[in-house]
């Protein structure tokens, strides 16, 4: 990955540093927005949901939470 090919960041694609820089970036944004870890009394969030061609279950949750402002983040995991 390099600036010449229009990539977002001048980082190696497969190195551990780039992998965790990206994950850490998304984590920092989420933490900054007030979605930091809560005490253990709160039930655990469900695991990773796999989207299908109709964007299920994201679309259904997006609709169900329409009384809230929503942040949708798309990021590479590595």
């Amino acid at each position, binding site marked *: 990955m390099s600036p010449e090919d229009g990539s977002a960041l001048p980082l190696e694609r497969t190195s551990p540093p780039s992998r965790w820089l990206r994950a850490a970036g*998304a984590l920092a944004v989420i933490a900054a*927005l007030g979605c930091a870890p809560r005490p253990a009394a709160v039930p655990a969030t469900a*695991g*990773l949901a796999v989207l299908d061609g109709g964007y299920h279950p994201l*679309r259904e949750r*997006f609709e169900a939470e329409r009384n809230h402002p929503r942040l949708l983040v798309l990021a*590479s995991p590595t």
Partner: protein
Amino acid sequence: MLAPLPQTDLRVHLVWVPILDSDTQAAAEEAMAAMPKNDPRIHQYWDTGGQLATALGRVLGIPPRRGDAAASSPSSSGASGLAWDVYLLYPRQARWPAAGAPPAPARWMHQLNQVTSAQAPFLDGSELRRWVGAPLPGH
């Protein structure tokens, strides 16, 4: 940037998308493990096949990069790139019609070189926090 906004009722949908060769479901599960735990406001997803990244690339008008699947696919009719490293903010009452494309956000930021400042600003954490705490355009 890291000072939280505990009063917000924001909901976060974090979608891991396959962009790089190393982006697999296993990698997404590993990345998920690094995110805040036990917070019901956060949902995480794996965008198998990059369908959401492709659809949102069209919605946002993201120009293609060399190597973008959406740009190089023979069946692709447009010149849209993939949406990744993007932060899309939706107001209350924003809807996503059944079987429809994802809606356009009220505001968004990105970390993509090919997106112009006229389209959307580059990610600025402080500004994004301000957006979350302020009324969105038209609402």
